[in-house]
């Protein structure tokens, strides 16, 4: 199919007088793993907030699988098959790991706002939540309240909630931020596993993760994309090196 998973055209976002996103055109192909990198304050997270409708756009268009999604609410975009994670862990703190994941699958299984069905009787919801729990390696923490999990476990749960609904377009905002090297390796393996066959867009600072996972990379600098290309080409791109002046794209753990 030629329709891109996400197509951004002339996307702009102003906060008051300051322009944060200054005209972004970007096609994310279906099934690709796409990383968005750039210096701090370049607008990477803002771009995610615009695509997922957490923030309203100022101008431009956003198409999800060929459909105009500008003006939709976050839950409406989620129902169209786009799911996202957050840079700051965003989970249901008082609910157990299992309940967190079950909440994440209920809508996609069509249970909507049902108050006449028993949760315990919904086998498909239980099986799917358990499968995701196994995937993210939290089965042994099933009944632990999410709020008291370790940081890395919460990050894994965050990814689990994001993928549980079976959305085919996944946005991950700095999935490995604040993790140790070992935890990062595990997280990368996890991301690779759970986004198999899906479209993945991620914002990431860790160049090791970016160059290890991404099929293509876009470089966002001051609200504009200065390059979109395969990792090898990005590494040699003069404009990118200019933007990252003084920092190395080759090191494995680059936080500029």
């Amino acid at each position, binding site marked *: 199919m030629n329709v891109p998973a996400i197509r951004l055209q002339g996307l702009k976002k102003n906060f008051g007088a300051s322009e944060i996103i200054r005209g972004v055109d970007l096609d994310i192909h279906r099934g690709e793993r796409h990383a968005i990198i750039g210096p701090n304050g370049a607008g990477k997270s803002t771009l995610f907030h615009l695509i*997922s409708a*957490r923030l309203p756009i100022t101008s431009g268009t956003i198409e999800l699988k060929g459909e105009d999604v500008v003006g939709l*609410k*976050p*839950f409406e975009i*989620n*129902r169209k098959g786009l*799911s*996202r994670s957050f840079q700051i862990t*965003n*989970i*249901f*703190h*008082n*609910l157990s790991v299992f*309940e967190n994941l*079950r*909440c*994440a699958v*209920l*809508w*996609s299984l069509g*249970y*909507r*706002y*049902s*108050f*006449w*069905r*028993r*949760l*315990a009787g*919904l086998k498909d919801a239980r099986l799917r939540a358990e499968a995701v729990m196994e995937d993210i390696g939290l089965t042994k923490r099933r009944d632990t309240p999410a709020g008291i999990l370790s940081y890395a476990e919460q990050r894994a749960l965050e990814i689990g*909630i994001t993928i*549980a*609904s079976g959305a085919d377009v996944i946005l991950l905002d700095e999935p490995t931020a604040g993790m140790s090297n070992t935890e990062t390796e595990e997280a990368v393996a996890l991301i690779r596993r759970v986004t198999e066959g899906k479209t993945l867009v991620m914002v990431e600072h860790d160049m090791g993760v970016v160059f290890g996972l991404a099929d293509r990379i876009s470089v966002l600098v001051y609200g504009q994309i200065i390059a979109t290309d395969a990792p090898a080409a990005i590494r040699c791109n003069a404009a990118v090196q200019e933007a990252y002046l003084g920092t190395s794209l080759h090191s494995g753990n680059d936080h500029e």
Partner: protein
Amino acid sequence: MNSAIFSRSRLALWGGCLALAFALPLVLKSGFIISLLCQIGIMAVFSLSYNMLLGQTGLLSFGHAVYYGLGAFATMHLLNAIGKGGGPLTTALLPFVGGLAGLAAGIVLGYVTTRKAGTTFAMITLGIGEMVAACSLMFPGIFGGEGGVSGNRVVGKETLLGFTWGPQVEMYGLIVLWAFACTIAMFALTQTPLGRMANAVRDNPERAEFVGYDTERVRFLMVILSGFFAGVAGGLSALNYEIVTAETLNAHTSGVVLLIAFVGGIGFFYGPIIGAILVTVMQIVIGGMTHAWLLYFGLFFLFMVLVAPGGIASLIVVQRALWQAGLLGRMLPHYAATALPVLILLAGLVGLIELGYALLTGDAGVGAGDTATKVLGMQLQLGTPGPWLTALAVTGIGIVLTRWIGGRLRSEWNATLATLHGDKA
């Protein structure tokens, strides 16, 4: 899985409570006790419905009495409209109409209030509560003005299996049945997709939106359903008291239900039931003993907020955890040792409060300290320093002892909790 609604242990618990509720009036035959039990049943349903919002959905409402009051008025008007044409069966089903009135009010008012959560929601409910309360005085034709609307729950000449609902004990039976049906329904609701997503919206509305749920819709549905159960409670109150006044839907009633739920424990399904029992008993028993009962209630609420913000239910849960870990035995002597100084402190405080209250509101008016006044069953000269110094001294001793022994209780408590959590880790 403990989430089955009718698991064996839960069935035993429900059954046991139902049997106890029906057995109580056989043992405690006094009319006073039965009236008290009736009020507890009504308040339990009302506060459980309130906790559907506060505890389960994270919505702090200052206007929940609106649904309760409208349910009560709807029930009363229908009761009077049916009049002689009805019978005990229709009367028994009337609280359902109260529920429908609450539900309808939930649809209309919830549509406005649930657009926002948090402080905005609280403020809007406060405003709407005041508005409805004001309307109730503006339309005496519907709300009966100051005198309220009264009726007679015994209608027609027939009986239903021998019941007319006339005697208070029969009314009690009807309340028990409704209260149980409502409690089971509200518990079942917590085990459904909507009930769970209400928890999710309470914990993190943003995340709930990003897993596909419209948080406004979740809140709206919870307000509607909660309005239904509050309306049923209002309907029961209409039948029970045979009078409905504007007070049933004003801010005071909204405040009481908030306090009941909070004191009982909003983090637990059954918390509000404990709160309803405790507060109703306090209200009636202490209220019967002293006019200053609201002051005591205020102090008690303050104490709970400061010492056990999780409510009575949270205290029970901790004790059960200690018991299961075999640590309760270690704490019991300390509880017992602390009880005495606390009682002394309470005695002193009660003395001061009653003396002050008697001095300020005594029959002879302010400053009537020269004559002997009856305080706490004793004839005391309020103008002399004797009673005051005694009460002050008892309070002082109570404070010193409580601080001393309470400090030891606290350190033992912390050590025990550390052991408990250490075991878990």
